[in-house]
């Protein structure tokens, strides 16, 4: 997959909402991040910043590099060449040890790998690994934290259930519980609402909103639904053609022009209950299914 950069796209290198003066208010700074994999440029000169306690949505169409960007902010097994700087909580990232990185950033993947027979409590306990010695055991404190996290996510009583018996919404919460057990200041989620029904989508967004407000956890999550992003997030970072197209409060980012540029759809923008609401429409010049005459 190659992404050809539109030459006319203006590449932003400044942080739209932050002046140099409040740099210490920032939890995450990404400067000129370029990711190349198999000679394809997946991200080019991506720069943005997230303040402490912000709830930021990453939007953009499929294949634009959202997951690549999120994974760059996690100390995982990176494939590809990374250039540029990532600074999280004042530390250059990834840090020297995966355990230290895991105390800064927790990650909730879109499609978590699970063992169906693993019990919920054991799974959430994996989030305590960065605090335990490799050959040691979980301490009472670890067990207390896992119990608290489960209770907080209304998962009390789920501890002894195998992961394979959970519904999609429950499993999603269990994975978030594992990430919260890491007790990191920064939480990254890759499309947490995609596989959920409307009710569970809203519950998920309320949950993230509360985590952000009540526990001061900074959240970056990719979302397909721009209306959910507009309703719950402080800021939207719009990714297009491998770089940041727009970044700011929902009402500034979700404009007709930006939506046309990012998703290639025409949109009408309304304000409903104080939130920007996008109604998109595909301009059809011809049939999508070809019919022989």
């Amino acid at each position, binding site marked *: 997959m190659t992404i050809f950069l539109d030459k006319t796209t203006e590449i932003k290198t400044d942080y739209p909402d932050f002046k140099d003066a409040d740099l210490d208010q920032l939890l995450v700074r990404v400067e000129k991040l370029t990711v190349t994999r198999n000679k394809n440029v997946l991200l080019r000169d991506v720069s943005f910043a997230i303040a402490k306690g912000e709830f930021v949505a990453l939007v953009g169409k499929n294949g634009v590099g959202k997951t690549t960007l999120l994974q760059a902010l*996690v100390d*995982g097994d990176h494939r590809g060449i990374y250039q540029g700087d990532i600074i999280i909580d004042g530390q250059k990232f990834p840090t020297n040890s995966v355990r230290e990185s895991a105390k800064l950033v*927790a990650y909730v993947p879109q499609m*978590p790998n*699970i*063992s169906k027979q693993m019990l919920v409590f054991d799974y959430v306990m994996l989030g305590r690994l960065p605090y335990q010695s490799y050959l040691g055991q979980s301490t009472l404190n670890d067990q207390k934290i896992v119990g608290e996290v489960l209770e907080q996510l209304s998962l009390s009583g*789920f501890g002894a259930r195998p992961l394979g018996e959970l519904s999609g919404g429950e499993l999603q919460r269990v994975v978030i519980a594992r990430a919260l057990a890491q007790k990191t200041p920064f939480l990254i989620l890759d499309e947490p609402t995609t596989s959920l029904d409307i009710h569970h989508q809203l519950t998920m967004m309320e949950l993230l909103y509360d985590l952000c407000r009540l526990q001061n956890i900074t959240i970056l999550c990719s979302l397909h639904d721009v209306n959910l992003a507009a309703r719950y997030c402080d800021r939207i970072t719009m990714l297009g053609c491998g770089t940041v197209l727009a970044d700011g409060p929902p009402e500034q980012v979700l404009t007709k022009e930006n939506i046309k540029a990012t998703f290639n759809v025409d949109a009408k923008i309304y304000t409903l209950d104080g939130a920007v609401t996008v109604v998109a429409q595909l301009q059809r010049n011809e049939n999508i299914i070809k019919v022989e005459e």
Partner: protein
Amino acid sequence: MGRGDNLAITKLRSRDIVYAIVFLLAVIVFASVTGPAQLSISQVFAAIAVHLPILSRHFHVSSLDEALVWQLIMPRICLGLLVGAMLAGAGAAYQGVFLNPLADPYLLGVASGAGLGATIVLIFMPEALSWSFNPLPLAAFVGGVISVTLTFILGKAAGSGRNSSSLLLAGIAIAAFFTAAQTFLQQRSSQGQIQDVYSWILGSLATAGWSNVVLILPYVAIAAIILVSMRRLLDALAVGDFESQSFGLKASTVRGIVIVAATLGTAAAVSVSGLIGFVGIIVPHMIRLITGSSYKRIMPLSILYGGAFLVLADYLARTILYPEEIPLGVVTAFLGAPFFLIVLRTSKRLI
């Protein structure tokens, strides 16, 4: 459900360990008194006691009984315990590392390499078997280690080194090559030598004295300690490399340590016993069906029950057609396959 359900952490329960050890001791006593020699428990105990420092003054036993127990019965039982424990533990380890419940301890080509090493000795140096130092286990061990090393080099060169499937494919390629070399050598040898090679391949615990036990004890002990201490991390590998690294665990490091330990131990076991199949699949599976999927329980219990299982299988191998012995690998396969099906059918748990 109350709040107590939250604290449902899976641990190795001490009663599980106690059951396993009681079962193991029962099997050892059973296997030592039910031989063709018809010894009593007290005779066996006395024969063992005279070799122990403090007890030796209080026991008296005929020299024939003493030789029978100390030179034939006990070494064979101990070898069975070590080999069975190692194969079952290595099987559980490979299943955890490759996330594949059908992985077995011979997965990465240990068996074919050891087979080639043994074949070379049996065909080119048949007179060596009567040396005071038997070179067969050493040759099998070296062959096993060489083939696994080649598997690693090839797997790393083919894949990025992070992907376990390239390692598996390399194992298949190496195993095919070594098996072909072994078959080629057999083809060029005499009937009698072929029979020797086959009887080695089919596995046996027949041994004279303690030399083989002493030979593999350090490898099996170190491998078992490493595997048991990694049991908690094996559970974490189930979430895949990227996710496990996101909570601070380098999956490739854990995988490397576990594979090296399991492979070295397997190579040592194979070198003295030949190829004994099914132990590494059957034992961990039965434990998984009974205690759940956590390696915190599977790993230590596989090691304990694996030893007991092989001693029982060996009892059958030497008694069913007495005075002839059936190859041990044949017994484990005969026992393993139907028993496995029964357990599978009666269990309500998911695999």
